[in-house]
């Protein structure tokens, strides 16, 4: 049944969010710490485990694939509800701070990716 896959996905998200909130409370932080990332890990583990095979293959799997395919339209809806007007109203300081942070972070991507690669290359030695 298609709902089995959807339910598995939902349980992953809820458990991940609960852990993320608990981490926030533990660290005394007013935010969910990595809830979505943890939920993704659960789904990756579940979809690579034999025990959960019946929930991830066939029609049940279609229930997860559907939401995965809805991702881009949902992101477009997300873009349409951003507070763009406030970002533009923020003036020069907000603009410069935001742009500078993005430019510097972009520049660091190739640098840090190299760290990742050299680690992997060293790994087997």
């Amino acid at each position, binding site marked *: 049944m298609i709902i089995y896959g959807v339910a598995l996905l939902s349980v992953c998200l809820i458990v991940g969010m609960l852990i993320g909130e608990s981490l*926030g409370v533990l660290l005394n932080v007013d935010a*969910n710490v990595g809830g979505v990332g943890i939920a993704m890990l659960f789904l990756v583990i579940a979809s690579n485990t034999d025990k959960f095979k019946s929930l991830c293959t066939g029609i049940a799997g279609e229930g997860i694939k559907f939401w995965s395919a809805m991702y881009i339209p949902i992101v477009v809806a997300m873009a349409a509800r951003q507070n763009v007007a406030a970002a533009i109203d*923020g*003036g020069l300081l907000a603009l*410069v701070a935001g*742009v500078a*942070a993005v430019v*510097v*972070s972009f520049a660091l991507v190739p640098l840090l990716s190299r760290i*990742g690669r050299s680690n992997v290359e060293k790994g087997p030695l």
Partner: protein
Amino acid sequence: MDIFETVFVRNNLIVAFAVIGVIMWLSYFLADKLTAGRIHGSAIAIALGLLAAYWGGLTTGGSTGVADVALLGGIGLMGGGMMRDFAIVATAFGVHLSELKKAGIAGVISIFAGVIVSFIVGAAVAVMFGYTDAVAITTIGAGAVTYIVGPVTGDALGATDAVITLSVAAGLVKSILVMIGTPLVAKSIGLDNPQSAMVFGGLMGTTSGVAAGLAATDPKLVPYGAMTATFYTGLGCLLGPSILFFIVSAIY
């Protein structure tokens, strides 16, 4: 007219599905005909979404873009945090653990580097614009981390409303720029494999920006970038009002 409004408002999520569907169709049509596929259809769709959001904000004065227009309220639900997170988690379906392990260390480093670098840049800009008190500098720096870290830090430190508003605006600029800029720079920063996507997510951190930026670049990279990005705001909220503030107040 009343009947029209009743039906649209009562079925707002369904209206959102239809409207977003039309936007997607139009965007892919334009991508195909006008740019011969050089610009990704989803990049155009996201840009149209942002334009619509700007228009919505201007006409209604609200804070959730086009979702403040009564007839389009369902877009707020469809594009809200709940649906976004649900769909992001779903993209992890089919990801292999081995790919995640490969970039594990670089991914973790990138989250710390991302928060600290964005903070320093934001704080430096605040100083450049003449701010001299540690609370304001820290809050604006935290805003350059994400638009959630800014107000969380500002509230914790007791910053003024004006400074908190500025920090949110800085975070919004960052998020929007990542959405639009990522597909443009993807090639030159080597953003074409799961490992660099994890580093990218950790460095940028804004979940919305990373989610949309990668979707417009290569949807296959989305789960990797999203995985690291979701830890970023939490780390920012942890470091902002504590260590980063102590460092700034030691200087000012």
